């Protein structure tokens, strides 16, 4: 009997591949509808895969249509299926998944189970346009209704923003391990350097340590540049049966998925306030692959807040627990393009825009395919993508087709 709780009878994710990727225009206050952006990214992904609309028989998205939180998810399965008149054998849209990439994991599972051959996966945000409308995008509790579910334990105490919840984690990590603001600042500085090399990124002008330290505080110890940028945009990909992908030259293989949640599903009940779900799902991912951390050529890790990237790097094992600060001090030679572990080579969400997990996946595929013009990691063959923070996380180790 297999005693590894993370291993089933087979590694079913290897039956599926990422056959195509697409991005809409991404920017601030684009004034486009979510559906318009989604159709743009979806048609690009289908064409990129060498498929046609009629080949798509599955559809998956995260977190599904959301009316209550402006701009967070302006369109769902229903809108896209109807707009493109897709003939589906399988579909899924929802937010109770292993963070943002859960919609990809669902698509992979559907393909591996034989329920679909080619699943279109998309994630669309219009948070920038929503911010300029009547109220702040994605702030819970601004609507006046009573609050149920997990948010009720935080929002009535004015812990309304993820900046507050992540701020508490960052404060405790600084307290326990001596992480400094200067060391944390290496992450936004790194992402800005990379954004300068990518003309699709939103903020590309140089960012200095003085700029970082001098910026206004949002929720101490997190300042303005520790927080990502709301944007408008859409990412899409096609997950195909490995033996049905039209163009094997550009296929990205999924070597292993980490979708585990073994700790508390909560921002405040984890026994160690310096650890997140990243510490759960990375264990599963490593248990399902023969690849090791030494094989990884680039990492694309969640930076909705700079500190969350530290939790991902630590959970993956790039440094021993608590040692993020000294590790990050090496800056560009550590996490830059051409460094030891090129991190968020498209500028991440901190400088590229909050595509909510899917920008990382798009970038990992671009790197593995050798398409990352101006920012290519030479010889990139293995990439790790991790998305989510706090109680939710999901990750994948991807490889170039060989």
């Amino acid at each position, binding site marked *: 009997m297999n005693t590894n709780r993370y291993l089933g009878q087979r590694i079913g994710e290897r039956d599926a591949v990422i056959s195509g990727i697409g991005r809409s225009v991404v920017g601030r206050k684009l004034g486009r509808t979510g559906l318009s952006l989604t159709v743009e990214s979806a048609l690009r992904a289908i064409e990129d895969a060498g498929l046609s609309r009629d080949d798509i028989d599955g559809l998956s998205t995260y977190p599904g249509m959301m009316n209550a939180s402006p701009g967070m998810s302006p369109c769902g399965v229903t809108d896209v299926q109807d707009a493109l008149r897709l003939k589906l054998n399988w579909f899924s849209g929802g937010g109770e998944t292993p963070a943002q990439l859960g919609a990809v994991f669902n698509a992979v599972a559907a393909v591996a189970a034989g329920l679909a051959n080619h699943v279109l996966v998309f994630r669309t945000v219009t948070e920038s346009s929503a911010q300029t409308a009547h109220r702040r995008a994605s*702030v819970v509790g601004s609507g006046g209704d009573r609050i149920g579910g997990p948010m009720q334990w935080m929002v*009535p105490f004015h*812990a309304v*923003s993820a900046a507050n919840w992540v*701020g508490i984690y960052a404060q405790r990590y600084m307290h326990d391990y001596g992480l400094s603001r200067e060391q944390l600042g290496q992450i936004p500085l790194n992402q800005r350097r990379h954004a300068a090399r990518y003309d699709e990124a939103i903020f590309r002008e140089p960012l200095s340590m003085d700029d970082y330290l001098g910026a206004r505080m949002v929720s101490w110890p997190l300042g303005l540049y520790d927080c990502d940028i709301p944007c408008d945009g859409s990412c899409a990909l096609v997950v195909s049966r490995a033996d049905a992908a039209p163009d094997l030259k550009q296929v990205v293989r999924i070597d292993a998925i980490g979708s585990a949640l073994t700790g508390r599903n909560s921002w405040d*009940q984890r026994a160690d306030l310096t650890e997140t779900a990243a510490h759960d799902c990375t264990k599963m991912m490593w248990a399902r692959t023969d690849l090791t951390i030494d094989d990884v050529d680039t990492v694309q890790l969640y930076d909705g807040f700079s500190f969350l990237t530290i939790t991902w790097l630590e959970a993956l094992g790039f440094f021993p627990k608590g040692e993020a600060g000294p590790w990050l001090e090496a800056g560009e030679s550590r996490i830059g393009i051409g460094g030891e572990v090129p991190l968020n080579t498209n500028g991440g969400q901190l400088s590229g825009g909050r595509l909510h997990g899917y920008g990382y996946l798009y970038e990992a595929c671009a790197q593995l395919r050798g398409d990352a013009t101006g920012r290519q990691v030479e010889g990139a063959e293995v990439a790790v993508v991790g998305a989510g923070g706090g109680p939710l996380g999901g990750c994948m180790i991807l490889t170039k087709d060989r």
Partner: protein
Amino acid sequence: MSFQPLPDVTDDSAAFWQGGVDGVLRIHRCRQCSTWFHPPTPVCPECLSMDVGPEATSGRATVQGFSVNMQPWAPDMEVPYVVAVVSVTDAPGVQLTTRLVDVSPDAVTVGMLVEVIFQHVDDIYLPLFRPVIEPSEAS
């Protein structure tokens, strides 16, 4: 502060959200195996007994982590304020997100001993926390 979202009270959560009517912080506990747990649910997460319910605590807690919020997230919000995760002294394993009051943000530390002070709004008694002023009893 006029920005004050309130929780939706259920049978499970009523003792937590409304316990402050008599000044007591109540946390769910299993009557079979004595495990404390939060949020309140109808089942013990340890032994799966459904013989569970709210029990009174001393209302004391220890700061485990905090963040000083400077950003007004709503037009009628006063800043700065301190949000924190505190561990409830009598209920091992139970932590609460809360707001700290009657304390300067600069004075807050991990390990600081705090006590509950309820803010009454409508039918809700929000458990906020403030530093314990008198010397704590030897444990």
